[in-house]
């Protein structure tokens, strides 16, 4: 058995899909785990979630939109804080889009038309290994045939393997993205910058990049977590969104965020059409409320507000900062995942589920918002259900009706 056409990450996912599986549902009491039937696990999960005063429902990086909408119905029914992994990824980008707006396009348009590609605070050679070949400078497009038809610009704080492929590389000082983006905006607007350098870069170099961007026929700015995670967060993304908007006075330019976790974009889409908000949605008042910093998972955990959590398709124990992960370990958690992870290993109830896109079909959204139907290729192990089915069963017990 082999994998064709996948990148290194996808190949590993397909070849490793049956490694380190959660073999059966478990209930953990006093740190000791015992295997139980699915029915018993669901009963215990429902008990934990319905007894909680302010449960959190979190995750959704790696499951289908169908499962996510089931989870949101449950979250609404129990007055939970519902959040998804974009809260530690491109949440700030969504906040920035709410302030500035977004001039964007689909990846197909990029492949066929873009003659200038910028990766800012993103290292696709590692994070999205086939991005540059499928949609970026090496892609075969209708109007741009290959690498020679495009210019590649990379802006980063290290000389990454992506940077080594660039025609133009700007190595800025950490934490200076906002200043450099603003300097570019000033140049675009023909405002004189009375400084010699910005972000450790000579002003002439920044002006050179400005000329490149204004002079292209169709430019695209792909940006990553270098903008969303660095000090400034959503303000960094606002500067990038505003720069792209300003460039459209000169030429055609679009911006696309480099989303990770194969369906975090789908989580944002489902959250938005169900609640009106893309992440960080509180249902405790009986209607959806959105206020990042207040109704976001990490903040609620930090303040000790949640007294239980349902985690689906995510491993926050590994990836949240220690203080937040410690808070999560103090409360009872119900975890749905195909694999054993640090999060399943501390869960009070852990339920194995099927791998979406391998053992279960479902809808996922690409980084540009295009929905894709993921296929079921093999059966899951016997007795293993999908996230959607498990969530609906928990919902039926908790809410007493079929959600």
């Amino acid at each position, binding site marked *: 058995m082999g994998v064709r056409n996948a990148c290194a990450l996808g190949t*590993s996912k397909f070849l490793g899909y049956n490694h380190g599986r959660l073999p059966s549902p478990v209930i953990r009491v006093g740190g000791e785990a015992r295997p139980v039937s699915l029915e018993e696990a669901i009963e215990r999960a429902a008990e934990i979630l319905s007894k909680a005063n302010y449960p959190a429902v979190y995750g959704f990086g790696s499951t289908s939109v169908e499962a996510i909408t089931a989870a949101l119905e449950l979250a609404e029914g129990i007055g939970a804080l519902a959040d998804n992994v974009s809260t530690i990824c491109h949440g700030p980008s969504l906040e920035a889009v709410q302030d500035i707006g977004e001039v964007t396009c689909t990846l197909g348009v990029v492949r066929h038309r873009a003659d200038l590609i910028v990766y800012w605070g993103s290292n696709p050679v590692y994070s999205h290994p086939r991005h540059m070949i499928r949609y970026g400078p090496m892609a075969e497009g209708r109007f741009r045939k290959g690498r020679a038809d495009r210019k590649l610009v990379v802006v980063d704080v290290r000389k990454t393997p992506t940077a080594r492929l660039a025609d133009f590389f700007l190595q800025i000082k950490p934490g200076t993205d906002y200043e450099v983006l603003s300097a570019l905006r000033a140049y675009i607007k023909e405002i004189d910058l009375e400084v010699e350098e910005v972000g450790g870069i000579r002003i002439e170099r920044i002006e050179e990049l400005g000329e490149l961007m204004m002079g292209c026929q169709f430019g695209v700015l792909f940006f990553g977590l270098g903008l969303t995670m660095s000090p400034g967060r959503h303000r960094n993304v606002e500067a990038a969104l505003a720069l792209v908007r300003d460039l459209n006075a000169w030429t055609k330019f679009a911006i696309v965020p480099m989303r990770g976790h194969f369906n975090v974009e789908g989580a944002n889409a489902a959250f938005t059409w169900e609640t009106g908000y893309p992440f960080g949605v509180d249902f405790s008042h009986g209607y959806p409320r959105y206020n990042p*910093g207040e109704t976001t998972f990490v903040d609620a955990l930090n303040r000790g507000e949640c007294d239980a959590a349902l985690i689906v398709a995510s491993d926050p124990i590994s990836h949240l*900062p220690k203080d937040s992960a410690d808070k999560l370990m103090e409360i009872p958690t119900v975890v749905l995942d195909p694999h054993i992870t640090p999060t399943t290993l501390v869960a009070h109830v852990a339920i194995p589920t099927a791998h979406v896109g391998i053992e279960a079909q479902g809808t996922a959204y690409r980084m540009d918002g295009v929905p894709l139907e993921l296929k079921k290729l093999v059966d899951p192990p016997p007795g293993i259900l999908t996230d959607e089915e498990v969530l609906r069963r928990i919902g039926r017990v908790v809410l007493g009706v079929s959600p």
Partner: protein
Amino acid sequence: MEVILITGRSLSQGREKEGGKLSEAYRRAVAICELDPEDLEALGIKEGENVRVRTDFGSIVVKPIPSPQAPHRGVAFMPYGPWASMVMNSETHGTGMPTLKGLRATIEPTKEPVASLKELYSGRLR
């Protein structure tokens, strides 16, 4: 040595996490710190030694690696994972997003070993 610490994806981190986070391959991929070779030399790290990365929020021992992403003097990189999470800042400044890039950190050589995943959670994992 004082540095700016950033965390992020790496190819081996992404590949190995799909194969299972409890594996030795995953630990080898993420319990590391990439440093500019000139910074490594200035630190005077001996063969087989590790580094202790310390921030205001925690400290962790990881394996130092000469960075393939050099030059970046004064900048240290750790791949996402349970080891990096031990030194990250949970403060979101009202955005929902904790501080996962751009932290001030100190790096010092140490003879201590790199903890296993089990040791990292000091017995809370079963």
